[in-house]
């Protein structure tokens, strides 16, 4: 559910640009997000549409592009993806959603904790690199007027 918070963050980052460029509205926004964020895009899109009402982003087209996560072990050189990484995460750690009571993985809220909670699937080392798939960035904003 923290998608609402992310939506606010995205809008708060774009609105000053619209003002700075003296544009009337935003027609298109492209967001690149890391696979490690485990985003629920339907909720994020809905939150963006709701929160942008009455702002220059109302009616804007929101597009999303996922950057796949990849990892490389510094000890044995093994490379792996997020699906494989997921299998190594401990199942006893979770954060409870206040509204639904469901348990979410901590990495849903802090994606980089994946790096703290997993190991190289090949040799078990915790010393590895996240080569891609973290964070969220606003890749493109198309202004009008």
């Amino acid at each position, binding site marked *: 559910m923290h998608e609402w918070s992310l939506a606010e*963050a995205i809008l708060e980052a774009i609105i000053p640009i619209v003002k700075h460029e003296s544009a009337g509205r935003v027609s298109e926004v492209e967001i690149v997000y890391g696979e490690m964020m485990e985003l629920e895009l339907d909720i994020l899109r809905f939150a963006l549409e709701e929160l942008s009402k009455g702002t220059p982003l109302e009616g804007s087209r929101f597009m999303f592009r996922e950057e796949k996560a990849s990892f490389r072990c510094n000890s044995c050189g093994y490379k792996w993806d997020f699906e494989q990484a997921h299998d190594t995460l401990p199942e006893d750690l979770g954060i409870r959603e206040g509204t639904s009571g469901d348990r979410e993985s901590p990495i849903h809220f802090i994606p980089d904790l994946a790096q703290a909670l997993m190991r190289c699937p090949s040799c078990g080392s915790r010393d590895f690199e996240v080569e891609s798939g973290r964070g969220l960035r606003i890749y493109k904003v198309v202004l009008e007027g």
Partner: protein
Amino acid sequence: MEDPIFDRAKKKLRKVERITLVASGKGGVGKSILAASLALTSANRGYRTGLLDLDIHGPSIPNIFGFNDELVAGKEGLIPPVVNGLKLMSLGLMVGGNPVPLKGESKRSALSFLLAMTEWGDLDHLVIDMPPGTGDETLFCLRALRNMDNAGAIVITTPSSLSRSVVARLIGLLREEGMRIYGLVENMAYIKCCGETLRPFGSIDDDFLSRYGLRILASLPIDLSIEERIKKGRFSELPGDFRYQMEKLLDELVGVG
């Protein structure tokens, strides 16, 4: 374009009335105990207070308060549990007993999300338990708080010459990055024994203080009962001398404005 998560983290910090960093040049000088005691004293005085544990590799705030319940999330993100009247947040609440070997960009990104995703609500005072030294976390925090006049640092050290020499490097960094330093807290300064007051690590001399333009805000004793209190889950019952010094320290901070 600014990273929207980091941008949100900064906005959340800007909304807090007063932010106090508790920083040290090296580990083992009592930084987390000071941060926890100061936050507790602030909450007891009626300020809406948060305590943020930024020590990624050794998060100890949950242990100090004996809190190990499951963390709960709301619509906006993580809800800090309220313990002894203050709101706590720490990566330790999310990783259990696992080591946290984050580095470089992963560390900065994790801190950014932690700050951006925590729902503090309205806070009068946020005490930040900093990691020791001048690494990624300290630089991240200084960047997040740059140009915010609601923030300042307390530097904690023991009177030992080794601790002082390390803390001088931290003071240098804080100054260079424009962070206000309220002053020094001298920890493990004395111990009361057999009717005498002993200073096993010596004293911080006036030369050191005048060289850095700082003063001692509080001198804290070695008090073995604090460890006992933590073990029994009664940290909030601060011992007399300690509590008096915390009240005085809080007065100093409030007085700075």
